[in-house]
């Protein structure tokens, strides 16, 4: 476990909440950002982040490093990421087991990868390169799944655990993604959550999901609603087993007021708190 991390709950930072976030004094609150939104030369985005950083720790959660592509991560992108890491000294840095950049085009999504032996070698090399450039340990997140692959050689948890063993990276366990994927692909979410090696989990994500507009059996990782009760239950089950971990509440669409997000964040905080005191 990443011991230098404040083991509390944080919030995804939205531009409409910059002012509220910079003046908020909720104890041990931290914010997570997508670094891609701050890879700019200057201007108010970076200025707000500087201001918020003086009061709250940050976590950088990348969506575009494309670590599961059959290519090394883009060196220019890594350089921009390293610049943000140096400037904002985040407590946590994370990315996804997914790809988005390929053949000169970027797709704004977390595309799935067959978890083959070849993919493991490629992703491990890409994580190694990233950690080498950043000089930091990163955590890798399980994305949501919508497709069944016949070509997987590994289960998701086994793949991530082996990746961590080879590279020294940590895991970012998105409990909502486990729930959504288990529903979509027909497996048991609790079994997956129970199988995650405790010592590898550096961060946890919680978010809301929705039902697909076209196919009612599919759940979409839409981040447009409060965390569902079933996901809270999985989260409590996980925390009970592995102990408190930094936990992010995400909302990226239908974003409510900052106060409402703070209340949802307090719910996660309340689950972590007794265990923090006992620890």
């Amino acid at each position, binding site marked *: 476990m990443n011991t230098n991390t404040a083991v509390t709950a944080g919030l995804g930072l939205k531009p409409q909440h910059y002012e509220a976030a910079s003046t908020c004094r909720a104890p041990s609150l931290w914010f997570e950002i997508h670094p*891609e*939104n701050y*890879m*700019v*030369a*200057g*201007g*108010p*985005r970076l*200025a707000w982040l500087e201001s918020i950083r003086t009061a709250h720790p940050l976590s950088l959660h990348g*969506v*575009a490093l494309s670590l599961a*592509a*059959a*290519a090394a991560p883009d060196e220019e*992108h890594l350089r921009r990421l390293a610049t943000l890491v140096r400037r904002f000294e985040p407590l946590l840095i994370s990315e996804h087991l997914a*790809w*988005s*950049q*390929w*053949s*000169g*085009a*970027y*797709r*704004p*999504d977390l*595309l*799935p*990868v*067959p978890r*083959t032996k*070849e*993919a493991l070698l*490629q992703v491990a090399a890409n994580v190694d390169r990233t950690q080498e450039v950043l000089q930091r340990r990163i955590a890798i997140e399980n994305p949501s*799944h*919508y*497709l*069944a*692959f*016949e*070509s997987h050689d590994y289960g998701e948890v086994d793949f991530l655990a082996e990746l961590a063993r080879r590279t020294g990276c940590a895991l970012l366990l998105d409990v909502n993604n486990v729930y959504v994927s288990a529903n*979509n692909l027909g497996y048991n979410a609790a079994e997956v959550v129970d199988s995650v090696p405790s010592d590898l989990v550096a961060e946890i994500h919680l978010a809301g999901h929705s039902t*697909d507009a*076209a*196919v009612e*059996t*599919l759940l*979409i990782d839409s981040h447009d609603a409060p965390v569902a009760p079933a996901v809270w239950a999985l989260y409590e089950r996980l925390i009970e087993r592995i102990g408190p971990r930094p936990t992010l509440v995400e909302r990226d669409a239908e974003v409510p007021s900052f106060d409402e997000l703070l209340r949802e964040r307090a719910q996660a905080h309340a689950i972590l708190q007794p265990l923090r005191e006992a620890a």
Partner: protein
Amino acid sequence: MTPLPLSEYQSAFAQALNAANPLTVAPELAALVQQPGFAVYRNTVLKGCIDALQANYPAVARLVGDEWFRAAAAEFVRGNPPERPMLIEYGEEFAGFLAVFEPAAAMSYLAGVAALDRFWAEAHTAADAAVLDAETLAALTPERTREVTLIPHPAARWRWFADQPVYTIWSRNRGDGDPAADLEWCGEGALLTRPHAAVRWTSASAAGVAFLDSCAAGHSIERAVIAALGADPKADLASLVHQLLSVSAFTALAPSTSTESVS
């Protein structure tokens, strides 16, 4: 079945995301494409690109309405997918696309409006820099105006629209005044700046735009004045320069990089 090499899988998957016709999908991908979940990726990628474009072109979107904008954007995205993940930069070619987009033919000002939306995004993310003050300029001797130039602020963007009130149309659709109010159908210029946090905008005269163009080319202040007068012989240069300084159009003085003499 032996799995596809990762690179081949990705090329086939990327192609299947774009394929309008499922028959063109590589056979190795068929088992994935026929699952209902494949459409989730297809929809998410397209929606993400269109959302980014709509966020970057709010005045265009407001002018043409949501439905028209998203249909046009979908067509643009097919030919111009994002190359890089910084989506605030996405859509550099959108103004050029609209200029030749058949359904936009009746809105000949639309490409200009898109160009100003683009200027806003560039100004919003441009490097921070000091603002040149009027005192520094006032202290210059006439000789020095032949040797130095005014460096435009990195956030400053400007353009002259010769035939259409593009600036007024754009600014009314960015929250200044009534978009439905009457327009005086004549040429006008636009100047966007960002001295501190917020992007600001103002109309610019033909002389002002010529002055800025000349400064940006590294010409001396004296030559920039001549360029401004070339655009409008009746221009009041003192008030023009005062106006440009008051909206923070320049960052510093520097030796002129153009050696061409004025005669």
